């Protein structure tokens, strides 16, 4: 790429830019933006029902405990936007939780080595998922389903079903502790900091060539391949990110909840639901990474709201089911309108130059508009 071309394009882009507020408004009308409105609405409802929830110290704890699922949703986003599924996520969480419990034990000196081992394990599982999906051409649904069964079976076989017990407190602090005595907030849980760091990293990653390539691959792999992307490697890295994020979620959950073989159960479906609620389209190519995290928060807020409303826990599934159908139906109508150009106002054509080069494949709905 020549710099001349780049500056050319940025000039055009600048010209094309609407005012900040206009852009924000436009973003909010897309499914990926609507989730933020949904989230704010849910939070407001919770605070109305239970004002103490709105206190900064309560709220930051809520953010802290939602961090693991939000991190998992961010990881799942990379796989989904690349056009694949990762069903092995729940098993990876369970595995990491039990690995931490059994290998660290009460020995503080083992915390760092085991932490490294867990990250390596996570990356390795992602690599295996990715390579079998891309090189052996097995659908990711099947690969990760097989991984889910095999991984959980192996871990339970290895441990006889139950872990030795909770690992050393120094390790659990990652998920349980925080910076204390902060003004206003009282405490900033470490999970909040980790989530923030990972969200920023994911946001940046999606604006870098890898992120754009991933969206291109999810949108149309054949075109992306022709355009020179190494499709297999892009997708494999997405799987590795997913497994690594499950690993981080596992590390946080060991701290938050402790070791039990049921930690992580159903995480894959919750994460996928969160991603989808965030307006990300299954099948790939469309959606914003931060909306996926917002989807996780919306989902957790929904559960909390139902709880405060006194809805029997058994109805929770029903409400969740109805909400995801409605959200996705609405999103799909909206994406479709956009595709057909029916809502052309959203594209504000008056700013477009006749000479504007068409945007590169996949960047049309990429992360840069967030």
């Amino acid at each position, binding site marked *: 790429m020549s710099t001349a071309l780049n500056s050319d394009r940025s000039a055009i882009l600048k010209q094309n830019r609407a005012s900040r507020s206009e852009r924000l408004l436009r973003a909010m009308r897309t499914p990926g933006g609507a989730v933020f409105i949904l989230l704010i609405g849910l939070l407001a409802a919770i605070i109305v029902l239970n004002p103490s929830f709105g206190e900064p110290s309560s709220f930051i704890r809520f953010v802290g405990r939602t961090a693991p699922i939000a991190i998992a949703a961010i990881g799942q986003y990379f796989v989904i936007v690349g056009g694949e599924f990762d069903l092995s996520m729940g098993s990876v969480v369970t595995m990491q939780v039990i690995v931490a419990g059994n290998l660290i034990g009460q020995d503080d000196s083992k915390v760092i080595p085991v932490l490294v081992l867990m990250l390596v394990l996570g990356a390795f599982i992602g690599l295996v998922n990715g390579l079998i999906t891309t090189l052996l051409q097995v659908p990711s649904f099947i690969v990760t389903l097989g991984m889910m069964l*095999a991984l959980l079976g192996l871990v339970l076989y290895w441990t006889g079903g139950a872990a030795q017990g909770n690992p050393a407190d120094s390790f659990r602090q990652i998920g349980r502790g925080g910076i204390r005595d902060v003004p206003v907030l009282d405490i900033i849980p470490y999970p909040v900091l980790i989530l923030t760091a990972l969200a920023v990293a994911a946001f940046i990653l999606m604006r870098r060539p890898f992120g754009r390539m991933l969206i291109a691959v999810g*949108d149309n792999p054949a075109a992306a391949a022709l355009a020179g992307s190494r499709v297999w490697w892009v997708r494999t890295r997405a799987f590795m990110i997913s497994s690594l994020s499950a690993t981080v979620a596992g590390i946080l959950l060991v701290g938050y909840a402790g070791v039990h073989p049921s930690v992580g159960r159903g995480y894959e479906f919750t994460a996928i639901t969160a991603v989808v609620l965030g307006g990300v389209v299954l099948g790939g190519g469309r959606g914003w990474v931060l909306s996926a995290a917002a989807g996780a928060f919306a989902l957790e807020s929904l559960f909390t709201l139902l709880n405060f409303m006194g809805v029997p826990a058994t109805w929770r599934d029903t409400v969740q089911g109805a909400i995801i159908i409605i959200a996705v139906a609405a999103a799909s109508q909206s994406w479709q309108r956009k595709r057909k150009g029916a809502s052309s106002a959203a594209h504000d054509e008056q700013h477009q130059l006749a000479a504007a080069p068409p945007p590169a494949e996949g960047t049309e709905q990429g992360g840069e508009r967030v």
Partner: protein
Amino acid sequence: MTRRAGFFQRLSSTQIVYLVALATLILGVVLVNSIGRSFFSPGNISSILTGTSVLGFIAIGQTLVILAGSLDLSVPYVTSLASLIAAGVMANNPNNILSAVLLTLGTAAVIGLANGLIVARLNVHGFIATLGVGLIISGYLATNFKGSFGQTPLEFRLVGATGIGPVPISTIIMLACAGLAMLLLHRTRVGHHLYAVGGDIAVARTSGIRVDVPVITAHVICSVLAGMAGLLLASRLGVGSPTVGSQGGYDLLSIAAVVLGGTLLSGGKGTITGTLGGVLIFAMLDNIMSVMQVNPFLKDVVRGVVIVAAVAVYARRRIVSRPERFPAKGSTETPAARPVPVEGP
């Protein structure tokens, strides 16, 4: 090497499925004989075939849905609901059997219709649509049923408990349903359209097919077959149970069986015969592992590995060479114009 590839290429994926089934069978005979049992004894055959019935019903329906380019994750809940309706309405009175069966299948069909409409009309991905509908039913079940419910009369229980020789009646009914599904796929217009829509919805649409019809039909049939599975379970258990569907994990297992049977997960290619092979492989595998008393945790490991390994065999072949119904697609395509996108093969 080249000769083997040539031999492989000449086989259809259904033929490979049955080769794998045959290999599993041989493995089973060897292993089971090695501990002094007979693989072909009536009790064992009956055990394997019983294992195929419930999953078979659901997998046949799942095949249709997947061929149409969708998925159905609501099947376990439909199955549980069906078992409850059946046992509840029968209430141990033989006179109620017919009305109970009709009501059960009717309810299942309505759920299938809802699935189909959400997928086809609202353009919600099958994964989410059926996950959502499944959750809705699951909440209803958990709130209203706290344990087993109703009772099926003796006459109805015989369906699940009788066999012709070692072949259970339920297996025969399942195979009959498979036959009907094959007729639908290969002899009717809806069947042909189903392949077309699953293969490439844009092409199907431009060729003048009303793309909604096959998708909705597939979903309705799938739910009805899940209802049949529920009826069978009500017959075997003697009662309805709100958890019997999720106990079996039939959602993911049926999808695995369908893909194991050589059907493309992205739709448009595959056969019922293949699916039956996939179901048979699972049933034999489970049977062998149970007879060998494999550690229950390791059973899942074996299952997981077999699913991936077996599908890898077909999938590898697929990119080498395969007569395409709708040619000129890239090796890893997802047609960009799909409103309901599915992941690449």
